[in-house]
């Protein structure tokens, strides 16, 4: 092990890895050079640079490297790019991802799926990357900000000549007779007041002076990092149950659906879509004969379930109502429903036929038949209609038995048992709401005698409810969003602090009538030179901003 002597000639004990003495600023290495000094972090040792690393220090050192941070950011960037090549799994409404990618995108799609890129942003490795970036941010910042804070908090006024003469802005000249202590101190005081007028905080020590302004801009990057850490933590907090949800659901007009994993039910009361008229479209669009929607809107009602949730008859309480349009979501305490898409899906919702005596023409009453969930029995005047069977998509199987071909009311058929005057025992009655099915399956013949007596039918289109559209909504909950905004705001404040202000420092000492000045800033050197030259001018020394640049020592 090498033991380094880190004690400066001024008597200050520095940490190993220190470049410039923390106290007087004397260069500890390269003592005799003349090129400008490396002033990064004021030459103090970064925490990770200190000697004898343990395994804990090694982890610390790994994450404290800016190079590692940049690699992590690049890898995350690449992963994010890959994650957007094909649609992510969570945007599917009703597709099997294991076959979808292969069928839609071929072999590359299958590889994409097998590599797990179809759920990049939920994957553990993506989270690990974000987490590592966060760790790197925290450690990189702490590694630098604490030593820097310490260095800037206790600066010595009288700096080593080697420190001053090797600043990027420096000047030496004679200002007084050697030995004229009073005039030297007077000049320093003049310079002090000139610099104070320029908003510098000035400290003097006899014939030495240190002036400093806008130190807070040095904290800009770290405040920016704090903002980013808040941002990242908020993003990671989305994995807390109930904090984040992002799913897509289709709502047929009139349909109420339960939102999975929430106590909410959402109903699409009505969906409307407006199309551009031909005269509103450009020629190109007209030629292509496109139907372009202008505006579409879902009249949505949000219910909260109070009991019997998840069953066929939950108890619901209306909590919100909003016409959802693109970029105008329903928002209920952070539960958001965005308009995403729509599809034309004409579908029967309900019919309201009336029961009529075929001979006398007397109408006994009407019943409302819901296509999704019809009741078990209905009453029309003196007649009771007991629903025995319901086939939403009627057909006959190979044995000639009635069956349903699908669960959608494409060709609904109802089998009732009617009881009432003249049919106390109950008679079966088959009912097809659609005229075409009624003819195809010869409803009147099947019903026989009852069909001669009674007629169940819809008089006009008023008795038929049809849902024309399915509205697709993006259901989102994002409790992390306020924190993400807060993090972004903090990060912006940090950026502004760092960008629009510069930390400027001017040191000078007069020894034997000879002035030695050095000045440092973290950016805008031109501005610093101008300011120093102007200040010197006010104090009686003509200096051209250009001559202050190192390597042009004149006078």
């Amino acid at each position, binding site marked *: 092990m090498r033991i380094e002597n880190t004690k400066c000639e001024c008597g200050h004990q520095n940490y190993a890895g220190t470049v410039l003495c923390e106290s007087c600023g004397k260069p500890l290495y390269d003592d005799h050079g003349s090129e400008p000094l490396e002033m990064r972090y004021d030459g103090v040792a970064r*925490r990770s640079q200190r000697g004898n690393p343990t395994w*804990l*220090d090694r*982890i*610390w050192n790994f994450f404290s490297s800016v190079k590692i941070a940049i690699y992590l950011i690049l890898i995350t960037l690449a992963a994010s790019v890959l994650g957007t090549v094909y649609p992510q799994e969570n945007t599917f409404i009703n597709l*099997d991802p294991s076959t979808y990618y292969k069928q839609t995108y071929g072999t590359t799609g299958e590889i994409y799926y097998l590599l797990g890129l179809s759920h990049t942003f*939920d*994957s*553990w490795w993506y*989270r*690990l990357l974000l*987490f590592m970036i*966060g*760790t790197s941010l*925290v*450690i990189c910042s*702490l590694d630098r900000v604490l030593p820097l804070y310490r260095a800037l908090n206790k600066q010595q006024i009288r700096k080593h000549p080697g420190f001053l003469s090797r600043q990027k802005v420096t000047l030496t000249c004679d200002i007084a007779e050697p030995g004229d202590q009073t005039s030297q101190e007077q000049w320093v005081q003049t310079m002090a007041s000139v610099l104070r007028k320029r908003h510098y905080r000035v400290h003097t020590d006899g014939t030495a002076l240190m002036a400093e302004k806008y130190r807070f801009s040095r904290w800009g990057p770290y405040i920016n990092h704090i903002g980013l850490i808040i941002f990242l*933590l908020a993003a*990671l*907090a989305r*994995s*807390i*149950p109930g904090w984040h949800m992002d799913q897509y659901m289709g709502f047929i007009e009139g349909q109420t*659906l*339960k939102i*999975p994993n929430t106590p909410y039910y959402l109903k699409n009361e009505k969906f409307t879509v407006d199309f551009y008229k031909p005269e509103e479209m450009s020629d190109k669009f007209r030629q292509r004969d496109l139907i372009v929607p202008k505006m579409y809107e879902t009249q949505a009602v949000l219910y909260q379930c109070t009991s*019997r949730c*998840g*069953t*066929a008859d939950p108890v619901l309480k209306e909590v919100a109502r909003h016409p959802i349009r693109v970029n105008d979501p329903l928002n209920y305490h952070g539960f958001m429903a965005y308009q995403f898409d729509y599809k034309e899906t004409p579908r029967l919702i309900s019919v309201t036929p009336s029961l009529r005596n075929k001979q006398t023409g007397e109408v006994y009453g009407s019943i409302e038949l819901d296509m*999704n*969930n*019809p009741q*078990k029995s209905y009453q029309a005047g003196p007649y009771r209609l007991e*629903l*025995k*069977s*319901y*086939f*939403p*998509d009627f057909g006959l*199987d190979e044995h000639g038995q009635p*069956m*349903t*071909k*699908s*669960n959608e009311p494409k060709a609904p058929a109802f*089998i009732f048992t009617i009881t009432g005057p003249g049919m106390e025992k109950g008679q079966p009655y088959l009912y097809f709401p659609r005229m075409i099915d009624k003819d195809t399956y010869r409803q009147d013949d099947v019903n026989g005698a009852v069909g001669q007596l009674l007629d169940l039918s819809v008089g006009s289109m008023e008795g038929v409810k049809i849902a024309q559209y399915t509205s697709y909504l993006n259901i989102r909950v994002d409790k992390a969003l306020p924190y993400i905004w807060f993090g972004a705001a903090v990060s912006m404040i940090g950026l502004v602090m760092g960008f629009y202000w510069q930390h400027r420092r001017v040191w000078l000492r007069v020894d034997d009538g000879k002035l030695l000045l050095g000045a440092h800033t973290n950016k805008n050197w031109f501005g610093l030179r101008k300011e120093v030259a102007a200040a010197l001018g006010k104090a009686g020394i003509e200096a051209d901003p250009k001559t202050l640049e190192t390597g042009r020592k004149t006078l």
Partner: protein
Amino acid sequence: MGRNRKWIQTAILLAIVIVGAVTLAGGLFKGNEPPKVGARAPDFSLSGLDGKTHRLSDFRGKLVILNFWGTFCPPCKAEMPDLEAAYRKWQGDDVVILGVNLNESHVTVSSFVDQLGITFPILLDSQDEIRKKYGVMNFPTTFFIGRDGVIAVKQEGQMEPGFIEQNIKNLLGKGQP
């Protein structure tokens, strides 16, 4: 100073490790993935055709055959009598069959069940929630859930009576290896 510094460093690293573990664990056990064979069968409760609420975890300790079916699906209908036969045969050996109907109307389901004389519990997945939870895309799909609540077999498509029998025997530990 040195000791203090080490302490702070350890504390910071520890905090980072905890945050990391929590987020990564959250990502791994999100529970939104459809269960695979060997995974624990997600619990649910549904109201049945009998009007009662049935909860999967109530059957823990028994062998549960979870069958997703609909009357619009001919192979589902075809395997129903075989399931019923198996239910009658093995009922006494702690074998439960749960038929999860795919969002059909009460009347449609009950008329079919009555017609076939099905006696095992039929549950109504009226919001399509459990189907999605189990990632069922093809019908019928049947899960054989062991006594420990872990999915042992997932079968898509119609099952032969022998297949049902064999799986029940295997899971009850009565089958030949």
